[in-house]
């Protein structure tokens, strides 16, 4: 059961009390509008915070503190939720019941989190220069290393091209040019602004009662703040259609198709669109998988994904470099069949069951609980998986057919071998 506790204007703590798990999870997200000027520095800040604080001035001291807390972990939390980007930290730690007798973990964990967030190592009134410089190098190489995973690379390229005029085209971690321009002073100034003006979403899942969690966290934000409202989430405004090919020394080609759907998760036909996506390319029983892989052996992986915050649906397939047109044509054939209502009741049931089952098991791990609730509060997703499930159950074949009819092919991307 989720409980929402306002700590002060713009700062909300959400608690999910549950004693089934071995570990607790706590996340602090500062919510920013996604924009080119901020994306890279927002991605960099958590990495700099994780380099040292007053009580633990270097990486080794930080690891020792975490080791003492029974191998707890702290990590950067940088998410994209529609037009928003979040920056912050999360921690995972053993539940107090598994600590040595009389020992507690939650309270020292929060104390350590306070150190990391609010007492970074400073130098001349800014972040330490060597920390910033080396984390810049790491951020830039992380951005570049997207190339290593060709599937992820192709997916990112497709979105970059398709959304070049939308915040959705900005990569989650920003881009190299903006990352290179960051200075220790600029980053620190920006962080002060983030701390002062941002909406803060805190999430806890674990066995502790909400009152205890609130009491531990409240003092962290006891400083003057003036929260600035975030702009509303917007739907995707498509540009003209386009097609792009790129060549790399690879043995397998990657085809990406980007469709507009004009349906975001804030629209009433959002759930039918989600069901359609699952039926179309959501898993191993989907249309695309069954026909293009199983029947025609044209690929190993093929799937579709629905970016519901923007209403974009993408299809990705790893294929022989000379099969681009054939595969594209077959994807369009499958789509056209769905648009004509040419799918069986059992395909629809399978798609609904797959969605229901994944929603139902949201509550089975601290990570998926945090991921659902901490983003639903920002995106407009149904408040609970249960509310979402109710809507899935009500979807009719006609609604799915209508959803399919809303798709328009906007962008084609192809990565091919030399």
């Amino acid at each position, binding site marked *: 059961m989720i409980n929402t506790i306002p700590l002060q204007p713009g700062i909300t703590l959400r608690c999910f009390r549950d004693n089934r798990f071995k570990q607790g999870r706590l996340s602090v997200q500062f919510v920013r509008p996604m924009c080119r000027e901020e994306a890279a520095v927002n991605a960099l800040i958590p990495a700099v915070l994780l380099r040292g604080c007053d009580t633990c001035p270097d*990486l080794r001291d930080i690891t020792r503190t975490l080791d003492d807390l029974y*191998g707890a972990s702290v990590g950067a939390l940088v998410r994209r939720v529609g037009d928003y980007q979040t920056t912050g930290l999360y921690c995972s730690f053993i539940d107090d019941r598994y600590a040595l007798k009389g020992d507690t973990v939650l309270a020292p964990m929060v104390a350590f989190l306070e150190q990391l967030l609010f007492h970074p190592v400073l130098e001349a009134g800014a972040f330490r220069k060597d920390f910033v410089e*080396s984390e810049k190098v790491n951020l830039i*190489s992380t951005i570049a290393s997207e*190339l290593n995973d060709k599937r992820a690379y192709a997916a990112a390229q497709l979105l970059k091209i398709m959304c070049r005029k939308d915040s959705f085209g900005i990569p989650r971690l920003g881009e190299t040019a903006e990352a290179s321009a960051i200075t220790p002073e600029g980053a620190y100034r920006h962080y002060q602004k983030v701390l002062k003006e941002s909406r803060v979403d805190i999430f806890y899942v674990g066995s502790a009662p909400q009152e205890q969690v609130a009491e531990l966290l409240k003092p962290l934000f006891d400083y003057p703040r003036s929260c600035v409202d975030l702009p509303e989430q917007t739907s995707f405004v498509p540009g003209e259609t386009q097609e792009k090919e790129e060549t790399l020394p690879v043995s397998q080609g990657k085809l990406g198709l980007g469709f507009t759907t004009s349906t975001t998760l804030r629209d009433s036909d959002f759930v039918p669109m989600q069901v359609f996506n699952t039926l179309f390319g959501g898993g191993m029983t989907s249309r695309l998988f069954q026909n293009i892989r199983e029947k025609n052996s044209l690929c190993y992986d093929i799937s579709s994904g629905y970016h519901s915050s923007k209403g974009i649906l993408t299809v990705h397939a790893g294929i022989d470099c000379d099969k681009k047109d054939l595969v594209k044509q077959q994807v369009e054939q499958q789509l056209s069949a769905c648009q004509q209502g040419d799918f069986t009741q059992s395909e629809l049931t399978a798609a609904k069951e797959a969605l229901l089952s994944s929603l139902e098991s949201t509550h089975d791990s601290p990570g998926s609980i945090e991921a659902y609730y901490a983003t639903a509060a920002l995106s407009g997703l149904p408040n609970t998986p249960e509310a979402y499930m109710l809507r899935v159950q009500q979807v009719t074949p006609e609604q799915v057919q209508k959803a399919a009819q809303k798709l328009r092919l906007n962008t084609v991307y192809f990565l091919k071998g030399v």
Partner: protein
Amino acid sequence: MEKQIYPNLRETLFRTTLPNGLRILVLPKPGFTKQLAYFVTDFGALHREFTLNGTPCQVPAGVAHYLEHKLFDMPQKDVMEEFATLGASVNAFTSYDLTAYYFSCTKNFPQCLKLLLSFVSTGYFTQESVDKEQGIIGQEIGMNQDSPDSRVFEELMKAMYPIHPINTPILGSCEDIAQITPEILQLCHKAFYRPKNMVLCVVGDVDPEAVAAMAQEILPAEDLEQVEVVRSWQEKMSVSKAETTCKMAVSMPMFQLGFKAEPPQKGIDGIYQEIVGDLAAEALFGESSQLYLELYNKGLIDNSFGGGFETVEDLALLTAGGDSGDPEAVKNAIFDQIQRLLQEGISQEDFLRMKRSALGRRIRDLDSFDTTAFRLCAYLFDDFDYFRFPEIYEAVQREDVLNFLSRVVSLNRCSLSVIYPTKEET
């Protein structure tokens, strides 16, 4: 079924062995909605030479993985579709030493379990369907060749192990899989997909007795096949190549270092050795080590760096890898650090902290149904009850870790595999 309570872990495990030899583990998880079943055979990519009832057999590379794909075929039945209709998702994977089939569901558990047991125990392979799979697996091989993470590891194995079949990729090559026939698949199914060679493990809010009863009902009542795997793969402790490199479309060099360790033992000695190996990796180059701090501060490693102790049937190694502008410098730094570490030793305080941290992480891992089911099965094949890990941490001594490091971290046991960016990318 035999019931055992692990008070430190707050878990209760049920286990039994059926008359046909199948071993069953059930871990009830009251209050959870998800149910997970793993049906695993002690047959992986390595097992290509064996005798079946006295007849010697040899099969092409990639056959275990091919078989995993084709086992989803059933006469007059679409296995995927049936699972989907039941609201379950099903999948499988093949590793070097085992093949696992699993489903997770939130309802219809008995029907799903029945379907899992029947499709995995039914070998039905037609020429047409075996031929068709060549295209799909051919694409999977292509995808794997483009994946630097897979390539860097496969190249390392080739450099370290001239004899052991770990030097061959799990998927095999396109030429290897072209030799696979329905008869070969049938032969491997008969030899390895039999109750004595398999484990069934269920995690979730289920009735353990009902799981055992279902397995008894679906699977053959007895298992009379005589199978011996030929393991003529003993290796020297030195590597065959100290360095191996290749070029790919990557953004910066990616490396993997490997150090040959003594082959793993079975039972409690095996997991003891593994925990010693993990702690040794942490002491030498883990995040709490002096070396990690130095390399990170110099920009020679970033947070992609990691490593640990790995075992595969009859071999064990220490690995470390990630992205680095200068992999050779990282390797040299590790050899410098080992001298210092062996001279200075590890303080008792540091050692206790490392043990507490590693133990805490293993306990946290128990929140994952998949990790838990997988580890319970894998350790059972090695004759060890995984849930006894806390007592091993109690027992491990500092000297064990230092002795391990002094043996394993030596130049003649070490290979470095690097993938450099192709020119087009620099």
